[in-house]
């Protein structure tokens, strides 16, 4: 599903250049649930952003579902993001003047899905994350966990090939974190490929594979036995 070869990325900080990713080789199969771990500054978020086409790579190659991701203009990148990827952010990034349902329906708007169908689909995904009754509420009226579940519903609404989550539980307490992880595991059980960036070991343990990043290189890449989040909920 994802194929990365010899990926380099550096940022210019004034006159200095900061080499963040120093040759990453990495691939993900369909249906995997991968945790990308590392301390802050290890390059894990940068890697996820490049995978999500939110950022561009300097060197190396990236293939997503057999499509080489290279030299994309913004229009093409937007098209691919819409078709292939769903995002979940640490700070939720819901649009604050839109209700939960409208937020979930937004990626469908950019897929040119009709209004009626958008709403139906949005309600279906809200139902899946258990927030059907909250459809008409604004994000400000929801708790952190609820917001993140709306964000996950929004990421799923476009039916992406890969779900990318950047510290999805970073802003949540542990109980809510486990609820969110439970949801992510269920989505993964349904066959979706998911990548999670996290620095919390207990969250990483709920995935099926852990990739350790340190100073821009992969130091460890192991398959683990998944711990089900449902036992904590």
């Amino acid at each position: 599903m994802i194929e990365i070869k010899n990926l380099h990325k550096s940022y210019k900080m004034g006159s200095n250049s900061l080499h963040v990713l120093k040759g990453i080789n990495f691939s993900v199969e369909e249906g995997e649930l991968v945790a990308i771990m590392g301390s802050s500054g290890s390059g894990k978020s940068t890697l996820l952003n490049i995978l999500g086409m939110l950022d561009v790579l300097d060197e190396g190659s990236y293939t997503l579902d057999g499509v080489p991701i290279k030299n994309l203009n913004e229009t093409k990148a937007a098209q691919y993001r819409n078709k292939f990827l769903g995002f979940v952010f640490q700070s939720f990034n819901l649009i604050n003047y839109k209700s939960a349902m409208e937020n979930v329906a937004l990626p469908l708007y950019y897929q040119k899905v009709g209004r009626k169908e958008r709403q139906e689909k949005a309600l279906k995904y809200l139902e899946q994350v258990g927030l059907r009754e909250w459809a008409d509420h604004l994000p400000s009226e929801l708790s952190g966990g609820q917001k993140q579940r709306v964000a996950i519903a929004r990421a799923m609404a476009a039916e992406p090939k890969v779900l990318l989550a950047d510290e999805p539980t970073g802003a949540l307490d542990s109980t809510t974190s486990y609820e969110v992880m439970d949801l992510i595991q269920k989505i993964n059980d349904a066959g979706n490929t998911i990548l999670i960036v996290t620095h919390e070991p207990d969250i990483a343990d709920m995935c099926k594979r852990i990739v350790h990043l340190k100073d821009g290189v992969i130091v460890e890449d192991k398959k683990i036995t998944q711990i089900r989040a449902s036992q904590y909920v």
Partner: protein
Amino acid sequence: MFDIERWQEIFDAIQKNKLRTFLTGFSVASGIFILVILLGFGQGMQNGIAKEFESDASNRIGVWTQVTTQEYKGLNPGRPIQLKNNNYQSINSKFSGNLEHKSPFFRLRNVTVDYNNESGSYSVQGVSPLFQNIENQFISQGRYLNYGDEESVAKVVMISNKIKRELLKGEDDPIGSFLKISGINFQIVGVYGDKGGDREEDRLFIPISTAQRVFNGSDNLNMMFFTLKPSSNFEETLAKSIKFTEDIKSYLREAHTVAPTDPSAVNTFNTLEGVKRFQNLTGGIKFFFWFVGICTIVAGVVGVSNIMMIIVKERTREIGVRKALGARPWAIVGMILHEAIFVTSVAGFAGLIFSMGLLEFVGPSLQVDYVLNPSINFRVAISTVFLLIIAGALAGFFPAWRASTIRPIEALRDE
């Protein structure tokens, strides 16, 4: 533009961001409102001043003489120059093709006029029938002086509405009755009014021939009045009338043996030059109001641009989210501009309708000196609305375009 989905998206955004929408709309509407009111008042002042200048024919030329101030051909300075009937006739025959109205003028100052037991002191002036057109007078009762009166040296007189009120104590029909001018009986043939108002109505008019004969004027004239046929455009008319005054001046100097350089022996006035000044004045007023108006519009444009930039800034994160969800750059630009154009249009037309309504309904009943019926050209008003909309769209385009090209990761990082 007619993408129904986009419209729904924009109405959502407008509904949920009422303050933002209100501020944008208000700055546009107030800009248009101020401009329309300003231009309306500019027009109103022009109307008002034009009315003040209405009292006399606007292309009137008058000629009079004084004493010479320069020695010429052996004649001493200080010699009085007297206009004569034959001067008037020569000018008439010389310039007959150019003249529109003409009248000789013989004046008696502070003459006692009696009617029954009432008595008053007025100016009595001997003129020709065409003097009516030169002074912009109208007939209230009876008739004006005619050439028959002039030929038969008739003792007939025109009085004004004011004199009728003052001296005749409001007698209903004075036509045919007699009044005494310096003790001589004159029959009233008409009552005139003057558009210039009361101050122009302190005069009685009698035929020029009668004035000269009865009051020992011989063939002397105090003044001569002329108006010229207007040409197709003002500049040409003005040039012609200036040339005409120079021509009669040089003719009169020659006829009376006055030095061509004598500054005061032969004098003329030309109201057309006054008209020129008046036009410059109204032109100046118009320019001033346009200038202020354009500054207002510029301020409006700057205001709209500022708001657009703030809106884009405020929405940077939202734009990042939308891009992460698959919005193409043009969809972002389109969304922001569509909203901006929609809001400025609605607000612009609201300001236009409100201000024009105010001018339409309040304007005519306005009672202020030098302001009459303020109004505005609809085409001008509507073009300024479009100008503001286009300017707002342009001002919004650049920040919107920049925002749409920011990489989503940077937009999302924006706090």
